[in-house]
């Protein structure tokens, strides 16, 4: 006892012995309650704030060290109760806009979310008194907030579209804003969704990539091409130089989305080409479009055909990895040909496609050669097996002949 007192007096008690986990009467009491009052206490352990040592009192006020609920949740101890929805952004911003504080926990985290939010449609609606508009907790959840990179977070790239759709696909909720609710359904038909959901490509664009996250706002006609061009820089460059640029600008049309749509972005080629929407069938422009589409379809078919032959050879155990690798160059040529469409010049598309066609022919030939080689091997095997069978039969006959004259068994011999 005496020794402990001396250690304490000197302040030399090891931290691990002196400091246990701080008392949290909020969690202790609420965990013993039921339903809505219990839920936060149960989920808060998974919350990133809890993991960084924050407690209920850091948002709700009060004294988490007090055992008496009256004292713990007294105004004297700064208890605020449940913050109003519209106050949530300001409440979060107390810490998330504080550079000094955020640097202690996540130095790379931005601190301008609240400033951005105030410029967003959501933020403006909240400021105008519309409490139905989204605040931080609608997207990030509350009491079980996780880091964005956590796959269970509602704002993880793979889950973000569903999170936005919770409100934006709800016709009843969106009725008063008079905005469509089919964005998510359209997005699920897009190449972006395919990359994100099917190929699990976390860099694939989702809602926030075009609309922004905290500063969420729909791109205007003037900025659509710039938004798409932030990823598709080459296409934007070619589009800016193409005849469509000036025509669409004069008609006050939104660039890329005129052909590709906005949420249901598709690659355009072959049947069902959107070119027909503006260009009459049989017109020079329509024929140019059909020619470019045919070039791309031809290359695509050639690559698929080569792919099928190589896959068949690989299934037969043939070593075709070099040809498969080479085929990647053909796929790159296909992408380049598709990009070249934005020039609206069929010769540029043709030139890009020709390189791919040559590669597709070469890889298909390699696949066919591998299949021929496989057949040759099987024929060789058959021949070899016949030779082996004949030899075994010959040996058997030799043994029979040997043992017919003289019995093989000897009664004496070493053991």
């Amino acid at each position, binding site marked *: 006892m005496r020794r402990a007192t001396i250690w304490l007096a000197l302040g030399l008690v090891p931290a691990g012995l002196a400091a246990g986990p701080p008392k949290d009467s909020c969690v202790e009491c609420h965990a013993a309650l039921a339903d809505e009052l219990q839920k936060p206490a149960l989920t808060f352990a998974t919350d990133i704030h809890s993991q960084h040592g924050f407690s209920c009192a850091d948002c709700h006020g009060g004294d988490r060290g007090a055992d008496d609920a009256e004292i713990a949740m007294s105004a004297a101890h700064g208890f605020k109760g449940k913050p109003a929805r519209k106050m949530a952004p300001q409440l979060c911003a107390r810490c998330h806009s504080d550079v000094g504080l955020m640097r202690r926990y996540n130095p790379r985290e931005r601190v301008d979310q609240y400033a951005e939010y105030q410029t967003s449609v959501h933020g403006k609606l909240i400021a105008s008194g519309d409490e139905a508009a989204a605040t931080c907790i609608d997207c990030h959840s509350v009491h079980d907030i996780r880091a964005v990179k956590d796959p269970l977070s509602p704002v993880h790239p793979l889950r973000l579209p569903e999170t936005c759709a919770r409100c934006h696909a709800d016709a009843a909720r969106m009725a008063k804003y008079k905005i469509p609710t089919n964005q998510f359904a359209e997005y699920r038909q897009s190449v972006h969704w395919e990359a994100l959901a099917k190929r699990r490509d976390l860099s694939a664009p989702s809602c926030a990539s075009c609309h922004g996250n905290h500063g969420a706002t729909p791109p205007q006609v003037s900025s659509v091409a710039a938004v798409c061009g932030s990823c598709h820089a080459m296409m934007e460059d070619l589009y800016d130089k193409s005849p469509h640029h000036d025509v669409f600008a004069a008609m006050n049309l939104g660039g890329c989305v005129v052909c590709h749509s906005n949420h249901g972005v598709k690659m355009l080629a072959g049947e069902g080409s959107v070119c027909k929407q503006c260009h009459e069938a049989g017109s020079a422009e329509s024929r140019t479009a059909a020619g470019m589409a045919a070039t791309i379809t031809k290359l695509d078919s050639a690559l698929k055909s080569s792919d099928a032959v190589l896959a068949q050879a690989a299934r037969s155990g043939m*070593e075709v990895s*070099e040809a498969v690798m080479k085929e990647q160059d053909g796929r790159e040529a296909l992408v380049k040909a598709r990009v070249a469409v934005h020039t609206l010049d069929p010769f540029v598309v043709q030139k890009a496609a020709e390189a791919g066609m040559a590669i597709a022919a070469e890889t298909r030939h390699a696949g066919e050669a591998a299949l021929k080689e496989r057949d040759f*091997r099987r024929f060789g095997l058959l021949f070899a*097996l016949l030779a082996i069978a004949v030899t*075994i039969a010959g*040996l058997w006959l030799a043994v029979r002949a*040997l043992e017919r004259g003289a019995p*093989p068994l*000897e009664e004496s011999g070493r*053991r």
Partner: protein
Amino acid sequence: MPLAVGKGRLERGVAWLDERLGLTSIREFVAHKTVPVHSGTLWYYFGGVTLFLFAIQVATGILLLLYYRPTATEAYESVQFIMTRVQFGWLIRSIHSWSANLMILAAFIHMFSVVFLRAYRRPRELTWLSGVALLGLALGFGFSGYLLPWNTISYFATKVGTDMAGSVPWAGPALARFLRGGDDVGGATLTRFFGFHVAVLPAVATALIGLHLMLVQRHGISSPPWIEKRFAATGGRVPQMRFFPNFFLREMMAWYAALGVLGCLAALFPWELGDKADPFASAPAGIRPEWYFLAPFYTLKLIPSHVGFMEGELLGLIGFGLLALGWVLLPFWATNRAGVERTRLVTGAGVVVVAYLATFSLLGYLK
């Protein structure tokens, strides 16, 4: 007559060699060498089949050496070159890989036939020990050769294998470092494994094969005790077949059959090359070693990470070590001090080991 002259020359040639090499004594020895004939004679062929497959390994291995380059930057490409550019390179590589597996299978069958036919009994203890050592070397050949194509599967399987070696008590870390030539599997490991595979292991294996064959010649081929008793009861001895040419011709039929199986496997299921190893990539899902390491691998996976105060993997390795030691020493505990054979114990142990290897290898393959 020219024929008579030719024959005379041949005879003179043979006599010349006989004088220098003692061919007559070898001929006498071969003429008197016999093999017991009974219901289990079939199992005697597996030793010869194992030897035949080893010879194929040596021949195809030498051919592969003409093109293979044992560096991390060139190994994969050189095997790819062998598979795609070298005339019949695919066949040589596939036969080398398949015959390695068949050789280990044949060695296992040979070993268990020795156990169940009681061929390990006095005075053949050293024959058994040299045989078990040869099986260990065959597994070493398999482990070291698996890495040489430097593909993803072999790279990560070697990582897992050398990790296990690192768990061996006391000498583990040093052993793992010795095997890897560093802290992790890399170019140094490949060079080292190549050295083991083409120089160290073949030298030791050749010496051991010589010893094993010499011991087989010295003690002859064993007959099972129950066969000996049956013939002894009637006052006779177990019938014998002349080794040459009767048994030898039959053995050749087995070799040709093995060659046919090898040809089918190599032509219909060419050994895959896979993707080049990328040390910075994460391990592919479902990584597992070759089939002959599957049973212990799967067992180690089943053991909890900690059993009592001990790490699960360490406990498993100690257990396998003790079991392997018990198996190696089989001839010495198969007979009690009074000289009575522990027949049931040996048969039971043999059945348990075969059942364990078959079941756990299958489970390891399926899971």
